[in-house]
């Protein structure tokens, strides 16, 4: 009886396993395989051993992209997490108007990425509304998308607007699950706002914070559309994050081996950072 149930359960999970194997596992394993080859899509892959990995150390485009990616992810996630946390907390204190604010705040997340990017591209234009506002305030126009000093910041500002909406909703969900009695007890004991946040809210919100930190880091590392539409990695590679470099290396330069190597490195970074973050925020506490 047990054996037949086991067999039946295998039959039921087989489609899901098959889906994972074909569409998730196989592409990852194939990317690892290709990263040890020279492959241009047109001719059969030629085994080159570790050469794609060895050349990374002298590949300036890659090293620059790695730095651009780290800069973008850091300056995106740190303010976004803080801002989302505060907004989520404020939303949780609202009464009936909460649903309206929640809808308005979540709006950027449900808009198509490309449409959002195109609108921001117009806004950052030299003759766009942002520069118009600066001019009205007596300031000079800023070459947001055509100067390497400003373009990374333009993308970061835009990501703040976009990502905050998503993570605010996650934090709001976290805040709404916090037990009210802890706060009431603290209040009765005369606790002030900041000590309450530090000693009650933050420890109780730790799993939500862990989730948001990991999600924000992974999403930041995987960003592509905004950079592609707004700057295509320019000017002079100032916004060429790893995903853009991977795309160009694969489809413009037809170097699938090198593109796969970059992908494996990106995959490794995401995996490592996620594990460290989970360990720091959740694992270490449990230990």
């Amino acid at each position: 009886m047990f054996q037949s149930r086991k067999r039946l359960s295998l039959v039921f999970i087989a489609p899901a396993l098959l889906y994972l194997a074909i569409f998730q596992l196989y592409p990852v394993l194939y990317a690892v395989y290709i990263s040890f080859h020279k492959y241009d899509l047109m001719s059969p892959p030629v085994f080159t051993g570790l050469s794609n990995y060895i050349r990374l150390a002298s590949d300036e485009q890659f090293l620059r992209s790695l730095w651009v990616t780290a800069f973008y992810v850091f300056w995106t996630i740190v303010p976004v997490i803080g801002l989302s946390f505060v907004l989520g907390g404020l939303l949780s204190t609202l009464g009936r108007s909460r649903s309206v604010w929640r809808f308005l705040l979540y709006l950027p997340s449900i808009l198509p990425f490309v449409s959002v990017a195109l609108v921001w591209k117009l806004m950052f234009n030299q003759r766009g509304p942002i520069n118009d506002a600066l001019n009205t305030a007596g300031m000079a126009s800023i070459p947001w998308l055509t100067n390497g000093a400003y373009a990374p910041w333009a993308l970061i500002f835009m990501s703040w607007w976009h990502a905050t909406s998503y993570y605010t909703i996650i934090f709001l969900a976290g805040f709404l699950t916090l037990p009210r009695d802890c706060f009431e007890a603290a209040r009765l004991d005369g606790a002030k706002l900041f000590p309450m946040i530090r000693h009650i809210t933050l420890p109780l919100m730790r799993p939500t914070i862990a989730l948001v930190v990991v999600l924000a880091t992974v999403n930041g590392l995987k960003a592509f559309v905004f950079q592609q539409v707004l700057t295509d990695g320019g000017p002079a590679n100032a916004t060429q994050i790893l995903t853009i470099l991977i795309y160009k290396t694969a489809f413009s330069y037809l170097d699938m081996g090198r593109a796969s190597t970059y992908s494996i490195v990106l995959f490794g970074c995401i995996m490592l950072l996620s594990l460290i973050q989970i360990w720091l925020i959740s694992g270490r506490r449990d230990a």
Partner: protein
Amino acid sequence: MRPFKAINFLAAASVAAIGMSASLASAAELKIWHHTYPPAEEFIKQKAAEYSKLHPDVTFTFQSDPHGDYEVKLLAAIAAGEAPDLINVLDYLYPKFVSKGILAEANLPAMGVKTNEELEALYSPGALKGLMIDDKIYGLPEELNTFALFMNKEHFAEVGIDVTDKANWPKSWDDLFTMAKKVQKKDESGNFTRLGFNWVFGLDGFWYAMEYWPILNQYGCEVLDSAGKATINSPQCVAAFTDTWQRLVKDGIGGPDYATVNPVNALQDFSDGRQSMMMAGIWSPPLFGEDVKKNYVVAPIPQKDPANPKTLLYNYSMTVTQASKNQEEAWRFLRFLTSDGDGYLRHTGYVTGLKGWEKSEAAKDTIGADIFADQLQYGTYFWRSLTWNEEGKAIKDAIEQMMQGTSVQEALDQAAKQIDFVRSQN
């Protein structure tokens, strides 16, 4: 009676089936892929319809994508075994595409000629050169081109310069920038309301190359030396970029901050009357706004040494893929399509390069056709390389750095380093 009827029915059905399969066997569907250029799309569709009338067994499907996306999609389709039959390819990609076995060698009998020489004799000198690898022809010109200077005569008339008079055309780059300063307009806050001249920005490496290649030729700058080592940072190249690209920004004439970037119409600012001069091909007027269409003049591009003119030559060709199952029919259609040079020029602004095109009725009706015909003889094709895209990108990056204040030498040193790195890996 019944068995007889059944046999008759079976026989009739078999004959019909054989007939249908025979007709299917001879039927050909030719897939054409082209970069987005609406006038060309319409013309090719019109010619395809004409061809289908003459050959009812041949049908066509057409797809277009903006330049840049087009090449990516094309390569993905070829890699996936879904290659179209006829494709639109720039000449600088021929070495790479031929080395990868993507392009089919020209089928001369299908085009009604016996030898390469016979085919070449139908074209202006050098027209097929960019489409040949090891003396084999792999495509036909759809757009044999060079760049000229387009000027808005109304803008210049406002500042008292009559550009319909050849004597007032800029001969040197210095003349060009001087004229640009005279014709440009700014509002009270110092923002441009009209640019005198600008280079293209925010587009792919090929677009940049079309504008710097004539200048590099004029200054004796080579991207690579004979051994394949990057020489883009040579003194000649530094001088070329300093005197032209960097000067534009230093003199406050233009720059990337002022260019409108439109992936379908790269010449948006001139087309809309926000810019008074631009460098472009003979194909550009159909994209102009109605006001500009009535008010432009075509002049040769400025020269470093007007006595020894040098410029660009490029070929956006049509060719047949190796993977096509209907190669012969595809070449036959290609010859049919491109032999209508008059129609091409009239409807699309493309010069197919057939001998004597400049004397055709369409050429007589095309403003500046004589200038383009004259300039073609001074043109040279881009440098040839299997890693052209990466090398072009390295130079584009260098230009973008110069535009932000990096010294020309430093920017080109980085480009040279990147080019050498890329070439060492291939």
